[in-house]
C-alpha cells in the first residue's frame, strides 16, 4: 500500500511505548499494532485525532504517501 504509517517513528521521537499510547488513546494494543505494522485498511478521523493529541503532532507526521513503483 502506498500509505506508510510512521507511528513507530513518532513514538521513538516522543520516547513513548506502544502500551502507553494504547492506554492514553483508548485503543487496544492489537489494533495499534495493526496500525503500526501498516496492515490497517483504514483509519477513523477520531482515532487519528486521539493519536495526534497524545503525540502532539500532525496527521502528516504519522501518515506518509509514497508512490509505488
Amino acid at each position, binding site marked *: 500500500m502506498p500509505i506508510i504509517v510512521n507511528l513507530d517513528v513518532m513514538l521513538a521521537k516522543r520516547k513513548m511505548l506502544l502500551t502507553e499510547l494504547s492506554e492514553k488513546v483508548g485503543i487496544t494494543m492489537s489494533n495499534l499494532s495493526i496500525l503500526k505494522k501498516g496492515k*490497517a485498511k*483504514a483509519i477513523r478521523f477520531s*482515532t487519528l485525532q486521539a493519536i495526534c493529541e497524545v503525540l502532539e503532532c500532525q496527521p502528516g507526521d504519522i501518515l506518509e504517501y509514497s508512490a509505488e513503483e
Partner: protein
Amino acid sequence: MEITRKLYGKGLITFLLIVFRSIFLLASIALVIMGIYGILSLFVEVTESKSIFPVLFSITKEGILNNPGDLGSAEFNLFSGMGLIVVDEIPTGFKLLFDIILFMSYACSLFYLKLVIKILEAANQGGFLIIENAKRLRWIALLGIAIYLLGFIATLASSFYFNGKLELMNLEFTNFNRFSLVSSNSVFNYLFLLVIAEAFRIGALLKKENELTI
C-alpha cells in the same frame, strides 16, 4: 479484557455437522465399494449381476380420467415418463461407460458434502463470513450443476442405448422427452447459489475491511 464471541445457533450447527459427517462417511464407504466392485467386475465374472438403468418412455394407449361430480370422464395420454429398468446382462462397454458417469457423479456429491462440512466447521469456530466459505459456496454451486449434467447425460445415454432394443406392450421408449428436463429447475437454484456466493464474498471482504479499520 477477554472478549468472548457468543455464537448463535451452535446447537444446530453441531447437529448439522454430525448429520453431514455421517452422510459423508456412508457415501465414502459406498463409493469405495462401488469402485472396487466396478474394477472386479471387469476381470472376474460376477454371477447374478443386475444393473439398473434409467429409460424414458410414453404410453401409446389412452387412459380414462374420471372427473368428480357431473363432469363425466375424459381421455388422457401419458406422453412423458421416466422409469428404471433392471437388466441381467448388458455389454461391458456400455455398462462401463454408464458406471464411469455414475462414479463421477457420486465423487462430485462426495466433494460437495465435504465442502458443506468445511463451511459448518468454520461456522462452528465462529468464522462463518469468510472468503474461504464464499469460495466453498461457489464450488458447491458448480458441483451441483456438474451433478445435474452428469445425471442428465447418464439418462440420455441410457435412453439412446435402449431405444429400439426394449419391447413392452403399450409402451414406447424414447430418446428424449419432457421428463428428461424435469429436474432442470435445480440448475437455476445452483445458478442462484453462485450469485449468493458472490454476495457472500463481497460481504466477507467488507467485514475484513471493517475489522482492519482502526
